[in-house]
Structures are given as C-alpha cells and as structure tokens.
C-alpha cells in the first residue's frame, strides 16, 4: 500500500472501492432512477422525453425568436448544453448524497465513496440517453451527421472525471455546512453564463478571453461542440487540457472526501 496521503493511493482507493462495490453502486444508481421516475405514467421514458422537449423549446426559441446568426443554432447550443446539464444535474443532485444517506451511514459500515459515484453513474445513464434525441434533432435539421460522433466517448470520460471530482468536493462540504447546497445553485447559474454555452468563446471581447480561459469546464465540454457541431477533432493540447482538468478535479475532490469521510457519521 502506498502511504495514505500519496496521490496514487487516493485514486487507487477510488478505483478499488468502485470496483469492489460495483454491484452496490449499480444498485444504488438504479434505485435513484427508479425513484426519480416512479409514479409517473411514462416512467423511464421521461429520461428520453425530457431532453427532447427541452430541445424542442430551445429550437423554437432560438430559430424563430432570438436569432444569433449562427446556422443550426439549436445544435450549436445543445451539443454543449447536454454535457453541461449532466454536470449541473449531477452536482445539484449529488451534493446531498452523503447527507441524504445519513441514516445508512450511521448504521452500516459502508465505503462512503459509493454514494457520490452512484449519484454520478445514475446521471451518466441520463446523459447517454439524451444523445438519442440529440441525434434525431441533427437528422431533423439536416445538419451533417459527422463521423466525429465516434470521438464522443473521450470527452464524456473527461467530463465524468471532472464531475465526480466536483461532486465529492461539494458533497463533503455540504456535510459540514448545509448552506453549500443552496450556494451551489447560485454558483451553477453564474457558472453557466460565464461558460461559452449559449455563445461561442469568440463572442467574448479579446481582452477578456484570458479570464474565460481560466474556467476549467470549457476544456472539458469543448470536445462535444467540436465533434457534434463542427465535425472536427480537438487538437491534442485541448484533449490534454480536458484530462488535466478532469483528473485534477477528481484528485482534489477525492482527497478532500477521503480526508473527512470518517467524520461524516458525526455530522449527518
């Protein structure tokens, strides 16, 4: 075993317990999805319908009312809105994952990392499903269906790492101060507008662009727009940047989570 504080051991621990408890993580993730769509007539179909309806609304708004002069703006927008929605939903949902499982943590000895991991996994399922209406929209708008779609697993991986790291961070903070879950909503909406999602980075005045480039998530979601809208592959520097952001977030989040997890039981 590496020493408890070494960088490797933190990620090693994450991978080890995720693998060992994979069945538990999967069961918890399915439980979440089941509960989310429970008692709704359409049930699991909502996972598909929800992004589809959102897309319909956005397409309508941006192709008829607000015109930005970007061709196929809906696709331009949705190609990064989907990963952003995954990120913000995972976070707002998982910020409570430790506190919400408090009764369990107080009674059963269970590796606590399974809760944020399961929360993110349940949202991955949603993300993957939302690419189905995305593809349909691309076809419907007669936007070229680029082969670069095949590249999507790479940005998805970086995005998941980044999201999981941020989830661990916020979930830990929320155990000690419940304000975090409220602050998070404000942070997320500010973050949304400061990220080139509804606009492109080129729209930002050049003297401010460096500021926007400090935002780690732009590297993480950049690949989605390139692959879906532009039909291009990112440069290797951009891929490297996305993974550096993802792995750093994961490392920081997990390190903090593991540092404090033994105290959770006294605060939930």
């Amino acid at each position, binding site marked *: 075993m590496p020493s408890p504080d070494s960088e490797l051991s933190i990620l090693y621990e994450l991978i080890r317990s995720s693998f060992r*408890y994979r*069945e*538990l993580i999967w*069961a*918890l993730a399915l*439980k979440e999805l*089941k*509960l989310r769509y*429970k008692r709704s007539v359409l049930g699991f179909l909502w996972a598909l319908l929800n992004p589809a309806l959102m897309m319909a609304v956005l397409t309508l708004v941006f192709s008829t009312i607000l015109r930005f002069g970007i061709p196929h703006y809906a696709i331009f927008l949705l190609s990064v809105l989907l990963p952003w929605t995954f990120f913000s939903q995972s976070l707002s949902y998982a910020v409570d994952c430790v506190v919400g499982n408090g*009764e*369990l*943590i*107080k*009674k*059963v*000895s*269970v590796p606590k990392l399974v809760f944020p991991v399961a929360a993110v996994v349940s949202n991955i399922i949603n993300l993957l499903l939302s690419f189905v209406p995305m593809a349909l929209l691309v076809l419907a708008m007669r936007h070229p269906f680029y082969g670069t779609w095949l590249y999507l697993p790479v940005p998805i991986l970086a995005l998941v790492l980044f999201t999981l790291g941020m989830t661990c961070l916020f979930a830990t903070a929320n155990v000690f*101060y*419940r*304000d975090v879950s409220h602050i998070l909503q404000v942070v997320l909406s500010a973050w949304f507008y400061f990220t080139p999602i509804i606009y492109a980075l080129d729209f930002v005045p050049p003297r401010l662009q460096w500021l926007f480039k400090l935002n780690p998530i732009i590297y993480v979601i950049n690949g989605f727009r390139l692959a879906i809208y532009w039909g291009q592959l990112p440069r290797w520097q951009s891929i490297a940047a996305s993974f550096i952001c993802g792995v750093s977030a994961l490392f920081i989040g997990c390190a903090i989570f593991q540092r404090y997890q*033994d105290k959770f*039981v*006294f605060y939930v």
Partner: protein
Amino acid sequence: MSDPRRWVTQSVVKLENVTQCFRVIQERPDSLRELFAKFFRHQVSYHDFNAIRDLSLEVPCGQMLGIIGRNGSGKSTLLKIIAGVYKPTAGQVRVEGTLAPLIELGAGFHHELTGRENILLNGLLMGYSKQDMKAREQSIIEFAEIGEFIDAPIKQYSSGMQTRLAFAVATEVDPDILIVDEILAVGDESFQQKCFARIEKFRSAGKTILFVTHNMNQVTEHCDRVILLERGSMIADGQPQEVVSSYKHLTVPDLTPA
C-alpha cells in the same frame, strides 16, 4: 469467483484501549451564518464527551457475549465501533471475519423499493455479492414469512414484517460475527422464538455473537459471558449470573426516590 471470506476460519473481535469521544457542541452551528456569528462572538461552545473510555475487550471465536448497562452507558456506541460505523478516537479495533450488524434493523431499507429489491440492496450494503443474495432470496422470504407481499414496496409492510425481513436478511447471509442490538423486542412471541432458535443455531455452529439487551432473562439464558458497561467503562466482566446481579445493584438506586 472465489470468496475471500471463506478462508477466515477464526473470527475474533479485539479492542485495545478504545476511546470514543463525541464533541457535543451546544447549538452546533448548522449554517455558515451561525458559525460566523458565533465565531466572532466567541460562542462556539462545546464539551467533549467520552461515550467509551479506554475500553479493552477480547471476544474469542464462538462466544456469545452479552452486553448490558443502563441507558446511555455506551452499549450501542460499542457495537457501532465494532461494526465499523464509528472510527474510534483512540485505540485499536480488530475484527476478523464477516460481520452482520443487526443494529436498528432495516437501516439499509428504502421504503419505496419492494421487499425483493431491498433484500438485494441490503445484502450489497453488507458487502455480499448479487449472486450470493439471489441464491438466498427464497429462504429469506420464507423465514421472514412475507409471502406474496415480497413484490410490494416495503412502506406498505407492517413494522413487524419489516423487522422480520431485516432479521432474515442479516442472518441468512451466514456471517462469522453477529451483532444483535435490542432488536428482539419487536415482533410477536412466535417470531422471537424463531429468532432465538436461529441465534442458537449460530451458536452451535461456532459463530461469535454480540448481544445487547435489557432483558436479563435472555442474557442469563443465552450468553456465555456478560460485560457490564457504565458511563463508557467496563465495570464487570464474567459469568452471566454474577454480572446480572451487579447490574441489578446498579439500577436499584434509580428506583428508590432519593
């Protein structure tokens, strides 16, 4: 898949000088605003409270140990330390073998899920595999006497049914160490007998059992050894009869008005 648990032949619980300290914060600040307010007025007041003080305990394999004491003496804290829920403030804890904690039964149950789904989830939480749980599902359902309700969400179960299901899950998985915390107070007479019959079966199979109860008849009837806790310390350790009588001495002053 080979099961590492099968290689454990001797299950044993060993605690060395264990202390569990809780920081009791008077009006613990639950939000940042309160924290700042109190911090600047120097009002974050707390005291440290030792729920378990410097306790050493060794339970050999196959023993049924009764843990008794008054309310707040630290019995449940001790069990939670052994179960790994609390990480003690000081001291060493060693537990060898698999452990089934029956602490507040049904802790892992989710009320919206069905009995069958809960069996799986609860088993996975205890560290068993899906395959393990599927193989045992039928006998769990039979022992718990749930019948056709097994596919209904457990929020529709009576409390007795939930307890029976939880007990069945925890004991059907064949643990090396069984932790029983006052759970047998629930359930009707016949189910209690069934539970004790199962506990006795565990005993004769050489399993280690840690048993917390306020029922002294159960203690003297079933336990090999009893320890008495008072304010987090172990004040008696020995034969059930002796320890139970010192417990009775301890509780007598409570009954007579001062």
